[in-house]
């Protein structure tokens, strides 16, 4: 299995006051992003994924705002990195 095969792809949204991550068979929500990361790690652990590429869906930002900046953030979550203390 290549290294790329160990990476899960998730889309992150901000919906009704909560973060929501979807993709790779995962659908989790939490108002706190660090807690959401823990949920993603738990969900993906044991599925062979070593990391998750989490990408924010900019279409959830207000339309008028997108003309100023078309990117919010992406990050990589390392599944083997342990849970947040």
């Amino acid at each position, binding site marked *: 299995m290549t290294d790329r095969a160990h990476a899960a792809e998730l889309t992150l949204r901000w919906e009704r006051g909560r973060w929501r991550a979807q993709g790779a068979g995962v659908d989790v929500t939490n108002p706190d992003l660090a807690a959401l990361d823990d949920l993603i790690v738990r969900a993906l652990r044991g599925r062979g994924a070593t990391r998750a590429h989490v990408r924010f869906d900019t279409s959830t930002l207000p339309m008028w705002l997108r003309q100023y900046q078309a*990117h919010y953030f992406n990050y990589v979550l390392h599944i083997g990195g342990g849970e947040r203390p």
Partner: protein
Amino acid sequence: MTNRRWTSGMLTTEDWWAVWVGLAIYAAALTSLVGLDLVGWMSRPRTWEWTNVVGDFEWSKLLRSTGAGYAAWHPLATWLVTYVVFAGLFAIGAYFQRLDMRRFLLGFTTIFLITWACWIVGNEMHLTTVDAVVDGTNAYRDNELSWGLQLGEGAPYLLALLAGLAIGNFAKGWAAKLREAAKPEWFIKTAIVFLGVNLGAMTLEATEFALELILTGAAATFVAYLFFWPLVYTLARRAFRLRRDASAVLASGISICGVSAAIATGGAIRARPIIPVTVSMLVVVFAMIELLVLPGLYAAFFPDQPIVNGAAMGMTVKTDGADAAAGALLDELMIARHLQETGEQWQAGWILSSAVLTKVWIDVFIGIWTFVLALIWVYKVEKRPGQVSVGASEIWFRFPKFVLGYLIAWLGFLAIATLWPAHAETLDAGTRALQSPMRHMMFMLTFVAIGIITDFSKLKGMGRLAVLYAIALAFVIAPIAYVVAWIFHRGLTPPIA
């Protein structure tokens, strides 16, 4: 809509579409090198005097084409082609951005009509003409004007801004309908691509001055930001007791480049989107206040420091649209005042360029700064090394792409003119439509659009944040920006026209 590859957004963001629209027109203008004129149809308003026009009306007294090859066309025909070309290009962009096409076209057409109405009215002699000899004639005296505001090209800009603001604040239902097409950032970024052509032509004429402006602009920006961000962040944390994430987003919004910095910083520190959204609403309104106040203030109090004023404007006024608009207004007001007082006419565009160049440096800087901030946040604030990492690709995703169009236009012009000097004059003449009427029209569209999207009533309920913004702007950003600009640019004046 997520950013996955370096090519993400090339067809779906306004930033990229400013590049495509600007370069498409630029490419059409470059055909002048093989003897064609594909942009000379561009319409432009004439300076007119109302008794002369009312008494004997003719469209040719108000409008004319830019290129000599189109001089025989009816003025309304060139105006219509101007509308069709620009509406068409922006509609293609709107289609790929998945905007509501019907609303966009209706909105764009309305904004276009308002823009041209302001542009034509604003060119009436009592508003624009300065009492001074230009090219051997004094139009003010020759036309026997009994009074005049003598605002130069600043008059149409002010009219456009007031028209936009009137709609945005007193006809909110109408403003909401126009919002789909009221895209000041898209319009101004396209204008900045055109401005790259101007800078190319200006660099050829005054190479040393242009290089000095560019280098000192970079240095001034760097020095200013060593002070801005930490001071505003400390003010927000200590004096206003704001949370760490809100303070960081607000510090970037106030001190770096407004809305784009607020969103980029919010993303870098993985803040809830509501924080940059709230700060952005504040930035948009304050940017308008800065645009209304600063050009007149600088022109009135520091009339002998044009480049200092432009650079200070670039560091003080947030959002690209408001900054470039303020720079354009300052350019016109200062040239008119200098001409009125000394009879000497500065070359147009240099003061605006100093404002825009400073802002471009700031925009480029934001990607790097937020990447550093993201690392600080993950490793030092959230203390999550090993669990979360941030890719260097974030710098590219946050890089303002219109800057690429600006650089291509500028360096492309310089490259052609220096590699084939025999064609330099043809190139300058062939791109004149971009350098003047097209750029001016994009600025005019920006002025109207920025007014439409600015609703001053949004300051209600912002309380503490608005107070912090006002204090930071008045006592930190504006004074430091001016001192830094003065240190680096004092004594610089544009070449004489």
